[in-house]
């Protein structure tokens, strides 16, 4: 399945995963992830024609409950672990140009 993993692949995946990697990490992940993927390739030997994927151990279908409003976390508690807030909202860096 897997072609040889390249540093460019690793950088692409890091971008998707929102991870900043050092040059050393790129080298390390290229080698070690490549090794793990080579091991995982053994799954290719298994005939899985007509086999349904198993996404969950307990295959429940929809679980319903009554749609009732119940108390939720108070705002102060919800914000209590945030790196930056104004007491009302989570604050993030500016995402639009200031014009």
């Amino acid at each position: 399945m897997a072609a040889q993993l390249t540093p460019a692949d690793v950088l692409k995946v890091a971008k998707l995963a929102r991870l900043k990697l050092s040059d050393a990490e790129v080298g390390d992940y290229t080698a070690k992830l490549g090794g793990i993927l080579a091991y995982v390739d053994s799954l290719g030997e298994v005939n899985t024609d007509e086999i349904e994927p198993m996404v969950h151990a307990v295959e429940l279908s929809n679980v319903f409950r009554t749609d009732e409003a119940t108390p939720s976390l108070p705002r102060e508690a919800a914000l209590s672990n945030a790196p930056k807030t104004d007491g009302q909202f989570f604050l993030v860096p500016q995402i639009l140009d200031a014009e």
Partner: protein
Amino acid sequence: MSILGATAGELVKRLDRGDVTSIDVTTAYLEAIAAADGKVNAFLHVNRDKALEQARAIDEKRRRGQCVGALGGLPVAIKDVICTQGEPTTCGSRMLERFVPPYDAHVISRLREADAVLIGRTNMDEFAMGSSTENSAYKTTSNPWDLTRTPGGSSGGSAAAVAACMAPLALGSDTGGSIRQPAGFCGVVGMKPTYGRVSRYGLVAYASSLDQIGPFANDVGGAALLLETIAGHDHRDSTSVAAAVPEYSRTVEEPLTGLRIGIAKEHFVSGLDQQVEAAIRNALEVYRSLGAEIKEVSLPHSKYAVAVYYIVAPSEASSNLARYDGVHYGHRAAHFDNMIDMYCASRAEGFGAEVKRRIMLGTYALSAGYYDAYYLKALKVRRLIRNDFDAAFREVDVIASPVAPTPAFKIGELVNDPLAMYLSDIYTISANLAGLPGISIPAGFSQTNLPIGLQLLAPPFEEERLLRAARMFERETDWHRRRPASAPG
């Protein structure tokens, strides 16, 4: 008998009779932690005053003649991945160094209702990813039987705490063996319940289709008592199952007649340490002498379990851990260029190497062009693994195997070889993929005095059978009574 040498069941009886108070018991364990944890490093956080305050309140309740819960003032150590209101819950990660949950996990609410004393938070591999507890951002836990060796992982702190008599009971979580493998390495009892038996509400998610909370204890009865306390339906976890919870602690003493034990030929192959194999064969002889029938079964897809796991678990992890974005909680980098860079820098600084490795692996497996080849393929083989068990359990009641291929390995031995580390979970991972309950019980020692664990697996929701089968063996042996020299006496 001393408090520290006693089982959970014995201590609960003594507390109920008033022979000892919760303050006596809690103080004894706090002193044990003070004496031994400098060497073992099982705990990340112990709040002595808060523990004694809980113990005092329970003693007071009892003095006033009020109804006291099933744990009646017994201390329980908690893996640092289970949210506890007002207590640090770091998951062994820099990402959550200052995180203090605003609510209790379901299992914590249950423990409070049962009048447990929450004695401390135990060390773990970061976000439960690892098999040695070396991936903690804070400290390396030692195996109480040999301080140069790992306690296993990821719930290594909880296993070491019980083994070194620093807590009579502990909670862990098991995604691929993270309760059973450290229990085996540390010579204690550890159990992964059926997926859905225990609510995951408030368990910080690693791989949601595999994660399950379970007990550690110094005997099977203790595991039964703690499982009974935490099991049952919770509407806040839609995967928790509304099945009746048997009274495990009452039925655990009843031996099973006509027990059929399966052994899988695929489990006794190269890579299995000879001393481990000998201990498992001896254990089977014990069962035979109790009238059990030993039958060979086949689990032909078990050799693919590690490969399936290392697609399914990292895929789920890459999605679950996307929540650590430096916005709602957790670490935010001090320096960044823009919003996206803030995410990337915060995650780079907050996560350790193994967590990043699994996020990368999962992101790759789910990315365009690879989803069918990796993720979907793994899910199909996952079903074949489950089908193997369904077929085997038509022939036998439980399946016996080693917990791990070797006794505890050295600290540092596998840390730079992730694949070798992953293979230490080869006997435990299938149960998570198939959703089965499993238990690890002490079954011997190596020539170098390292514990060896026996694993028993059962069909879904047959925890009662598992506990009774485990207790039959325990009653005939004294492996579980041995304590490491590092434990305070």
